[in-house]
């Protein structure tokens, strides 16, 4: 019986081997040409061509080819999902690109740096002055230590752009209800009160996805200082989930639902629908990130709108954008550094800003579009005060879903604030124990 089974297996194996042998040559042909031929820079990113980053990087490729005669740029637009699923495997093979866009954070760039798949860019960052162009809170997501935890250690990535959470508002509705743009937290709640009394729900909220937890985080940040953020995000010091910051956030979120600032049924709303309802002019305000900016700019036609920073906070949810990384297996690292350097040049950064993105090293005077100016000036305010506090779901793997569920419970009123905080604390502490913090 045993021999027969091995016989069948051997047959299958023979067929496979024959097929393998027949095509072995095929695989080698696809490999890189010999170094003597013309050089190519293999470049990957996953931004859409008509977005701010897509436009700026297309220009950077043009400039690169102009300044590097004889070098061809082989650019491929990748699927975000593909890079997310298989970056580790790709970078560990011969197919690794020379430079690619990658997600910042401990679970992504941090993990790959720990596995030795990314090139240490510290020397280049110092030599080319990238470290001077980026403010401290932007550098946080560029550096990773030996455990793959961001915030300190070597440079493994260079961010080109930034993002932050703000309040977008509908100017027409503000005028109609005679509400001024709030500059303090008291004015902010008073404004929401005016809308709520007039029967208008002031905030469009998507409780089923990231938006609600960002409001929750903004509220916590309003009571927090930098050491608390470093404790929570970078594991430098203990975080008390029943301390004043999170307690205030949980109780205020629940309170806002009671007062009608946040609709009770928003627990089931997706981010996309939240955005659509704001575009449709149904809500006076929406609290969300700069990634919505381009969409609002093209799609809102029926009313005037603007943005302001969450009033009263020095710390805001936000961070650098995705980063350029150079895989350890890259074949043309020198070209990759040259390319990153071009993307940090004023010209490219200004183009990024004028296309609706938030550049990290632009010349503010060169930004011509008034709305973009507002967006970037607010960011400069925030960045010079070192106010980027990252996102609440970063500290632990799978924490996003924990936060979604927790904040949904607050909105539904299904659980008391203190119970929700216990739910948030457990996975966080567990992760802390895992990484030996």
């Amino acid at each position, binding site marked *: *019986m*045993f021999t*027969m*089974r091995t*016989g*069948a297996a051997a*047959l*299958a194996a023979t*067929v*496979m081997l024959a*097929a*393998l042998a027949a*095509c*072995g040559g*095929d*695989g*080698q042909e*696809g*490999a890189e040409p010999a170094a003597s031929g013309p050089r190519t820079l293999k470049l990957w990113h*996953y931004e*859409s*061509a008509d977005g701010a980053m897509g436009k700026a990087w297309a220009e950077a490729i043009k400039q690169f080819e102009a300044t590097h005669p004889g070098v061809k740029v082989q650019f*491929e*637009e*990748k*699927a*975000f*999902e*593909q890079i997310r*699923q*298989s970056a580790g*495997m*790709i970078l560990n*093979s*011969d*197919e690794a690109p020379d430079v690619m866009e990658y*997600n910042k954070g401990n679970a992504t760039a941090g993990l790959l740096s720990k596995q030795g798949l990314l090139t240490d860019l510290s020397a280049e960052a110092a030599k080319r002055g990238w470290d001077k162009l980026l403010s401290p809170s932007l550098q946080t997501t560029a550096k990773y230590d030996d455990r793959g935890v961001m915030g300190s250690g070597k440079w493994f990535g260079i961010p080109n752009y930034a993002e932050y959470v703000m309040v977008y508002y509908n100017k027409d509705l503000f005028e109609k209800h005679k509400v001024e743009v709030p500059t303090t937290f008291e004015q902010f709640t008073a404004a929401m009160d005016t809308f709520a009394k007039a029967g208008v729900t002031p905030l469009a909220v998507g409780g089923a996805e*990231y938006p609600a937890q960002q409001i929750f985080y903004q509220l916590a940040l309003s009571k927090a200082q930098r050491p608390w953020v470093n404790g929570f995000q970078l594991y430098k010091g203990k975080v008390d989930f029943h301390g004043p910051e999170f307690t205030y956030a949980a109780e205020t979120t629940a309170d806002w639902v009671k007062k009608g600032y946040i609709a009770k049924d928003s627990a089931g709303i997706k*981010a*996309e629908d939240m955005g*659509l309802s704001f*575009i*449709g002019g149904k809500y006076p305000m929406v609290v969300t*990130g700069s*990634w*919505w900016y381009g*969409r609002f700019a*093209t*799609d809102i*036609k*029926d009313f005037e709108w603007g943005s302001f920073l969450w009033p009263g906070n020095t710390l805001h949810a936000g961070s650098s954008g*995705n980063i350029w990384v150079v895989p350890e297996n890259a074949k043309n690292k020198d070209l990759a550094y040259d390319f990153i350097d071009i993307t940090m040049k004023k010209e490219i950064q200004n183009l990024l800003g004028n296309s609706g993105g938030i550049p990290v090293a632009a010349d503010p005077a060169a930004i011509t579009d008034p709305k973009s100016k507002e967006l970037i000036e607010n960011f400069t305010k925030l960045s010079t005060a070192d106010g980027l506090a990252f996102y609440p779901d970063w500290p632990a793997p799978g924490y996003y879903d924990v936060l979604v569920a927790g904040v949904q419970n607050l909105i539904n009123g299904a659980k008391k604030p203190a119970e929700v905080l216990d739910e948030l604390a457990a996975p966080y502490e567990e992760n802390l124990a895992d990484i030996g913090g």
Partner: protein
Amino acid sequence: MIRKYSVLVSLAVLAVVMLVPFAIVTLNAVRSPADYSANGPLSLPDGLHLDGIVEFWNRVDFGGKLWNSLLISGSVAVLAVVLSVLNAYALGIGRVRGRTWILVVFLVANTLPQEALVYPLYYLSKEAGLYDTRLGVIIIFTVIQSAFGTYLLASVLGRFPHEILEAAALDGAGKWRALWRVVVPISRPTLSVLLIFFFIWTWNEFFLPLVFLISNENQTVPVALGVLQGDKMMDATMSSASALLGILPAVVFFLIFQRTLTRGVTVGAIK
């Protein structure tokens, strides 16, 4: 009579339920993004807007992806059927000792989630120089599909009338000849159904092609559709356009081979 109508009505309801997603996808595929933002996904579009489809086609070089999908699914379908027939001939008609256990092994292999296979396959294909080649994916899916094919065909051929085989042997046909001249022609309906299933299953595969086909020039249709899924944003109208383009080939393929499918099923039933 009443029963007849109630069946008809419930079938009609079922058909509508099945068709609603397609209708919504089609509606949004021909809608302009501004219209989508203003009126939402369910209203009738205010005019035919084909830019999304055209733009998506050019952006991902859809023609190339179609060819890749066709090449991979076609090769897998043919190779997997051949491999299944050879295996099933040995197991079902050859009556190999311990065949039940071999079939159990095949069945277990079938139930393995693809996520569990990814790392071993990744290292094997890297060693063999087949990482990021269409050939690598063809080999992987040929083996995966033929695991199911072997299991199914072995039980079908297990009930193959022995008289026919004995008659063939009396006429002087060897084992090889009996397989190709007797067994394969008689079980052709089953084989063509298997072929079509393998084609469609391979066509719809997403995860392994996503991991193994790195270069854009090697990618298949479902992987190309993934390009539109961003980190935080989605482009609803263009996603619909791409989804429409993505399902059309499968629908066309089904319409062409629909008769083969039904014939295969009914022949099996009469036997």
